[in-house]
């Protein structure tokens, strides 16, 4: 159980990035956080990862408070961030330094196999396509078998075909390892295709405004009616979250003329 308890984050310049954010994610659940850019969703993920510290509130993983990067929490960044001087296999095994070399190689090989890149074990990162590189990044995050995997818009830099195939890949991996997935995205289709639950965020300060429980069975039909309906629900919630924000014209209509 991952618990985000009343988190507040204020940056040194005084900007309030997050206000009273609460989430409870069950073990093995897939939760997507959606919202426009600048709504604080990446900040939230960095706090859960322990890369930054919240100003107020706490983050608990199975009763343990997270104050720094935790061995049971993996992170997939928006960019692959592979280390260019390591081969694909060495990158995949990067987080297994405390494991003896033979076992490390075996586990790196296994996790590469899972993402379909076993043939590329000896390649350099520069020889990979964008989608392949991101698969190695996912393999690297999963190799230490984390309980929670955080993904920060992991597929947003990829083309639509690659994105769709990586989403399916991610679900296969989830089936195999059953980690808790917390995914930040601005792609509503991605959110409803992957998640059990979608949380909608609103900016200034960042907070949750809606929670949509999808309760849809897997495998899901990407083009089916159920997903379409879910997508509309999320979009509507997002739209509400935008409209509820009073804009300059609404406050002083004459100013727009």
């Amino acid at each position, binding site marked *: 159980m991952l618990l985000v308890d009343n988190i507040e984050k204020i940056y040194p310049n005084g900007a309030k990035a997050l206000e009273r954010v609460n989430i409870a994610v069950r073990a093995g659940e897939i939760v997507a956080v959606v919202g426009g850019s600048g709504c604080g969703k990446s900040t939230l993920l960095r706090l859960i990862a322990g890369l930054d510290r919240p100003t107020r509130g706490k983050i608990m993983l199975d009763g343990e408070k997270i104050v720094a*990067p935790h061995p049971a929490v993996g*992170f997939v960044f928006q*960019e692959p*961030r592979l280390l260019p*001087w390591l081969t694909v296999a060495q990158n995949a095994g990067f987080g297994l330094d405390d494991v003896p070399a033979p076992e490390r190689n075996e586990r790196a090989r296994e996790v590469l196999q899972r993402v379909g890149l076993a043939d590329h074990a000896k390649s350099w990162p*520069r020889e990979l396509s964008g989608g392949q590189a991101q698969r190695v990044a996912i393999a690297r995050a999963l190799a230490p078998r984390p309980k929670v995997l955080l993904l920060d818009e992991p597929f947003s830099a990829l083309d639509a075909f690659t994105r769709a195939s990586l989403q399916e890949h991610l679900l296969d991996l989830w089936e195999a390892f059953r980690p808790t997935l917390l995914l930040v995205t601005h792609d509503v289709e991605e959110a409803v295709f992957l998640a059990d639950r979608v949380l909608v965020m609103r900016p200034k300060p960042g907070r949750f405004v809606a929670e949509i429980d999808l309760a849809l069975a897997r495998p899901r039909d990407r083009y089916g009616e159920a997903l379409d309906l879910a997508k509309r629900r999320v979009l509507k919630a997002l739209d509400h979250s935008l409209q509820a924000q009073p804009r300059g014209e609404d406050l002083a209509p004459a100013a727009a003329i």
Partner: protein
Amino acid sequence: MTAMSALESSAAADTSQSANSAAAPRRRVGWRFLIGFILPVALALAWEAAVRFGFAQGRLMPPPSRIFTTLYDLAITGELFRHIAATTARILAGFALGVVAATLLGALAGASKLSRDAIDPTLQGLRAVPSIAWVPLFILWFGIFETSKIMLIAVGCFFPVYLGILGAILSVDRKIVEVGRMFRLSTPALVRRILLPAILPAYVVSLRTGLGLGWMFVVAAEFMGASEGLGYLLIDGQQLGKPDQILASILTFAILGKITDSLLAAAAAPFLTWQDAFARRD
């Protein structure tokens, strides 16, 4: 799923293509190597012909045949190798001293903002002093023999290496450092597994620049009173009016400089095969 496999195979085609293009330049290397000789050999032959056919006197600018004869004479008497050994020994000592000092101070300055603010302004101020300006002081301090020469070469090698390592440390990508943090690397592990490999390419370039300056400063050092060394051959040639000896010595500098630079580059190459460099995409 069919879309997936199509994607896979196109990705595989991509990689095999890049593997081909990486292998291709290696096959052409033999020919490429010769291209570099065309210009100097053509110039040498033209000058040789100009002197032979009486278009030029060749007294102050001797033709290649005379330069090579001089070089040969110096070589068979063993003189040449004595001078080369003296000069190379000075370079190696000065370069080693300069590189060790520059690496330690560069790493210290790169380690934290505080240490950088403490030492970098002083070093930048010293860098503004033309290195040759130290010569009189070094002679007073260390005498006119080996120590002052080695110190001058060390000063010459120091600054490019210091700037290179400091700049490389400061430009390490925050994003990959964050990957290290995510995997909870200790500070020594972060240095060993992320910082060192990340700064290595820029460090190698700075070492090559430093070595190049080392060759420059060894001549200056040998001008200030030496009884052996390639710089001594230059001065000796000037004083006794032997331009062929000067040119023989210059030619030796060119060859030795190129060889040492290539050795340094070759020593570093195995550690840099991962680089996605412009030059590789031939």
